[in-house]
């Protein structure tokens, strides 16, 4: 049986005519946790947005294969229906739409079925409790007036309801206190199973200590230059990116 979930080959991506990803390769199997680390401007968020299908990020070469299908030309909503989820670094604030209404619409779109009102309320309440979110957030407008931490928890809440096959966490741990990082990590671990995979973009090891990833990749100048285990994250934590930058200065 094919265990491959995501396969990225020679991916080149332009943003506003500028090449950001310069031939990136990455394979993620079902049930694995992968981490992308790299200095600012190396292309981490570009990779996240490109995988989700943001129209500003133009694929000029290469392929993204997800669950056996090339998804280069799919729109973001079609990718979401296939099971890709992006936890945004800066979630948008949407006036006038409550978290609950938004999530019900999202679930209806992704599953093609309208969830029962009471059952959905109950599900939402349970998931919020696990994330230590006050349940009044369900009736608040989406991210409007939420603190940084509340926005990130709300992303994880959406993920836990939509149950994607691949969850991409774009610096979800940035700006969170230690308790919030633990809560987020537990939320991620709850949806991860042998068929679901996680791609974490981060600068910090704290979240990784909880998640125990299978692979760490170093992204530098639009390419993955090094892959290893947790020891690679520890090395960067101690020494920064300078050594790696020097070693790969010629690419």
């Amino acid at each position: 049986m094919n265990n491959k979930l995501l396969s990225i080959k020679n991916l080149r991506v332009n943003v506003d005519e500028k090449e950001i990803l310069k031939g990136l390769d990455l394979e993620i199997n079902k049930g694995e946790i992968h981490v992308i680390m790299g200095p600012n401007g190396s292309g981490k968020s570009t990779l996240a947005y490109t995988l989700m299908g943001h129209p500003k990020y133009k694929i000029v070469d290469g392929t993204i294969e997800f669950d056996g299908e090339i998804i280069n030309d799919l729109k973001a909503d079609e990718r979401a229906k296939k099971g890709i989820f992006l936890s945004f670094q800066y979630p948008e604030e949407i006036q006038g739409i409550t978290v609950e209404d938004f999530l019900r619409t999202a679930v209806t779109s992704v599953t093609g079925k309208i969830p029962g009102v009471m059952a959905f309320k109950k599900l939402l309440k349970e998931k919020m409790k696990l994330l230590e979110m006050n349940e009044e957030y369900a009736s608040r407008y989406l991210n409007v007036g939420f603190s940084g931490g509340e926005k990130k928890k709300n992303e994880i809440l959406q993920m836990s309801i939509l149950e994607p096959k691949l969850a991409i966490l774009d610096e979800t741990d940035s700006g969170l206190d230690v308790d919030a990082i633990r809560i987020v990590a537990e939320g991620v671990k709850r949806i991860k199973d042998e068929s679901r995979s996680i791609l974490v973009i981060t600068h910090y090891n704290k979240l990784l200590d909880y998640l125990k990833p299978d692979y760490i990749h170093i992204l530098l100048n639009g390419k993955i230059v090094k892959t290893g285990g947790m020891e690679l994250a520890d090395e960067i934590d101690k020494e920064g990116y300078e050594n790696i930058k020097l070693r790969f200065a010629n690419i």
Partner: protein
Amino acid sequence: MMERKKTYIEDIDRGIYDIKNEFNYLFKTEKGLTPEIVMEISKAKNEPKWMTDFRLKSLEIYNSMPMPTWGPDLSDLNIDEIVTYIKPNTDMKNSWDDVPEDIKRTFELLGLPQAEREALAGVGAQYDSEVVYHNIRKELTDLGVVYLDMETALIEYEDIIRKYFMTLVPPTAHKFAALHGAVWSGGSFVYVPEGVKVDIPLQSYFRLNAPGAGQFEHTLIIVDKGAKLHFIEGCSAPKYNVNNLHAGCVELFVKDNATLRYSTIENWSKNMYNLNTKRAIVDKNGTIEWISGSFGSKVTMLYPMSILKGEGARAEYTTITFASKGQHLDTGTKVVHLAPHTTSTINSKSISKDGGYAFYRGLLKVAPDAYGCKSTVSCESLMLDNESKSDTLPMIELNNDNIDIGHEAKIGRISDEAIFYLMSRGISEEEAKAMIVRGFVEPITKELPLEYAVELNNLINIEFEGSIG
């Protein structure tokens, strides 16, 4: 009998709003406007002489005034091509069962009889120039509440009508007020006696079915001291290939300590010139609340005015304007603070899409001895693409400096990042845009009675269905 026809391929299907009935009438005037036509209307209605004279005088004023040269382009509007009076082939009924089948069916599709059963204390339904159905709950008549079509009111309450009629909006106000004075027909008269609080809304619905016609209904509402009323008005018309004209007039008298909430959703078809005049005068500690949704029409010019005449009087506006392809909607608010300690709060939102043009025009005027007044204005515009336009023009005239004024205007384009965020959760592009628009107007929808909130959301959905390629 029933036709569902699209005039142009690119037109969206507005569903029930576009249902046209066969043009079936008892009596109509010729196109255009002459003293003979005006006298003919007056005679057909069996009016007292003072009203006939009033009409003729208004016609003179109309003829002496130039077309307005500011605001939207009205050069395509030729009053000589408009039929000003069309009497439907029925008398007024007070049971839906007696209303002719095609007319009744139209109102049923618009949800009026059902709303009457469920949520309204009284209903008036006007079809072309005349009211075809009118009914009010007995409990209200027992309390002395009067809710009549204007024609009956002119007979039964002639003195009151004569005292108030077009005193707040005189025919000299502007050219279309003069036109209204000459050819007005139908509309509603409401009187709520002192201290009576009407908790369930009254609603009048104006449906213009005939092609190339005008609708000129007159609404006159008097809410006496300490009384309370919520009045709802709905308007719609199917789309024809010729221009239609709506030049209604609304005069609201709010006495001491009284409260009137006046809600409208105007959903005219896109061949309509909607040149409507609405004014309220508010006495001591009285409150006028305007809830206004302007959809549809080719051109709208609508600036509901509040004259805060008594100390402590208040005006509140919650308005939404939605301009789509081929539409120029010029809407706004006018508030005149005449007395001390009067308050006005304006919350206005507009949306423009597919080349539509939404213009907000606001006038705030404070009299020299109206000290201690407070006014808060918030205007927000949302443009959904690069072809659409939006403008804001607030005019403020202050004649004393003991006032507290806040003004905030925001014009912006719909955020691509917000659309992407919603799409990343599996929501389609059209639905994402509709959601953002629904969220933008939510502060308005939550002020509306439920069935109107549903209608507003339906109108937004109609605008988005299949409109994005």
